[in-house]
């Protein structure tokens, strides 16, 4: 039993979401809600979940798009289960191709959902998600590891966040404002810690790989090279 497992449920029908959440809560899960894909993505960016349950057809962003973004932009390996009325093989294929780990068609037995969640939680995060090869580097987002030419270095969480944002915009220059917005939600501490974090990140990577990885572009920002 995985009590107090953190589960995100993204479902636009609040009655259905409520009924699932009440059941899972009664079984000991900690359930968080989002009523559309965009809100779900926001929650996934800002919180840590053990598992996510997505509906497919939702306003603003579909469950399929949300799952794709989760895998390819957030590099999140958390198990994803689709809970939907779409029951054709083609629908299921699309779900798994988007990065789902399981697919449950409505109407379903909540006991079955619970058993599937247990199975997914017992397997843990996916091993094949979270490895990114870019700019001559291999980034393991799951372990916060960066590899280059046979060498590897483990980064701190904040350093990893900065590198992820820089790589997201690679090969473009990323301004301080963008970085501050992404890391501190536009309200960085007054001590200007970004400069320090960038300096430490750059030093760590140069020391480990004996080459320049991040460079400062005067009056513009920072860039991975």
């Amino acid at each position, binding site marked *: 039993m995985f009590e107090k497992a953190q589960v995100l449920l993204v479902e636009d029908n609040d009655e259905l979401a409520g009924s699932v959440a009440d059941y899972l809560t009664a079984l000991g899960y900690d359930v968080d809600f*989002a009523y559309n894909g965009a*809100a779900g993505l926001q929650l996934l960016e800002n919180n840590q979940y053990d598992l996510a349950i997505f509906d497919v057809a939702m306003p603003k962003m579909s469950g399929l798009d949300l799952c794709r973004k989760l895998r390819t932009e957030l590099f999140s390996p958390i198990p994803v289960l689709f809970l939907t009325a779409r029951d054709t093989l083609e629908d299921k294929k699309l779900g798994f191709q988007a990065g789902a780990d399981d697919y449950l068609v409505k109407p379903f037995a*909540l006991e079955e959902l619970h058993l599937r969640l247990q199975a997914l939680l017992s397997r843990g995060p996916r091993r094949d998600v979270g490895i990114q090869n870019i700019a001559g580097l291999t980034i393991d987002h799951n372990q916060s590891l960066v590899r280059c030419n046979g060498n590897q270095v483990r980064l701190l969480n904040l350093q990893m966040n900065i590198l992820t944002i820089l790589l997201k915009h690679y090969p473009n220059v990323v301004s301080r404002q963008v970085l501050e917005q992404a890391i501190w939600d536009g309200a960085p501490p007054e001590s200007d810690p970004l400069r320090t974090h960038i300096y430490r990140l750059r030093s760590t990577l140069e020391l480990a790989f004996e080459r320049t990885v991040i460079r400062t572009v005067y009056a513009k920002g920072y860039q991975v090279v």
Partner: protein
Amino acid sequence: MFKLKKFNHVLTATFLVYTGLLCALYAYLLFRAVHEIEDQAAQIYLQNAHAEVLKELSLIEHRFISQDIQVENTDNVSPLSDAKLIAALIQHFKQNRPQLNIYTSLAVDIPAYLTSLPLGLHEYLPENAQILVSSLPGKNFTLYLVYDETNASNLDESIPKLIVALSSVALLICLLGFMVSILLGRKIAKPLKQLAQEVDKSEPLLPLVGHQRTDEIGTLSRNFTASIERSKQFLTREKQFSRHVSHELRTPVAIISNCISLLKLESASDAAKDTALNRIDRATSSMSNLIETFLLLGREQETNSKILINLRDAVFSELEKIDLSDKGRAFKPKVLICHDGIVQSETALLGILINNLLRNALAYSASVVRITLSHKKLIIDNDIAELDSISSSGFGYGTEIITRITESLCCQVKVDKNDKRYRVSVHFSD
């Protein structure tokens, strides 16, 4: 015997009858032509004989006159009478033209049927005779030249042979016609048979065989192709609709099922169980509404089911049904209704349509839902709230069902939307 249900058999039978009739007609015409030729020949014969009679008559007269001169010299006078002249003429022609009988109106042995004939050529069938009636110049009697056809030719004796010959030819032509009709029937029926076989298949390959032909079979093939395509499109549409109906029903069923599961859980709190019961209640109500809608859509449309409906009353009625308090939102949008309108429509389905449009507008509105009414149009216009704060509280129908409802009501729905506003216009047909 032919089974005349088949196209090529009908064609063969028709062709056979036609050939038979054509042969009979040609045989009759040929038969008539032979007789006509025979008559013409007899008439020509009579005309030649007439000319010869005139010539011979002149010669006989001349001969008698010469004889009279000699007699005058010997004082033995014997005057030349018409009877004598005719007797000499008949005598002459009896030897040269045995089929020709010569009579005059003076003769006592003249057949009765001749006396009533006027001048000219005649045919007297009872006697099988061709007759030329003429008046001789300078003579006061009528000359009858009678050509007896009975023994003139062997034609009458050959009639049975002629009939047999003609019948044989006719039969041969009929046989040929029969064979040609079979071949022709098969040739014509072949593309039709192929087309029928193609159409008969469970999954015919489109376009059907013969669609490129310019004749009637091509037209038939193209029409069949178009018809099958229309049927396929209709079936696909119906399948999609059925699938959508199934999806729509699954959500309330899933909620009911989930709530029952929760009610069975011992660890569930009383508050959670109460919520579950309320959810079951709402889901059941929504499912009943859904089923009612599908039944209304599936029912045969009756023209007299449309009545005059006051749109303002209908909107108020549907607003009362929407529970705005259960939206989980911090505010309720204002509803403004402008003008008035009366339309002819079907009460239940129009109510469902208005309910869905209002429900969506109220769910997504940030502050105001403006409803504008007229006798032909219903416009629902709303601003859009931040999506993060919106959940779908009810069971608003999907696009497919709304489309089907508008089709059933014979009205058009137009949606204009941008990031800030959402506007739905329903145009009612006259």
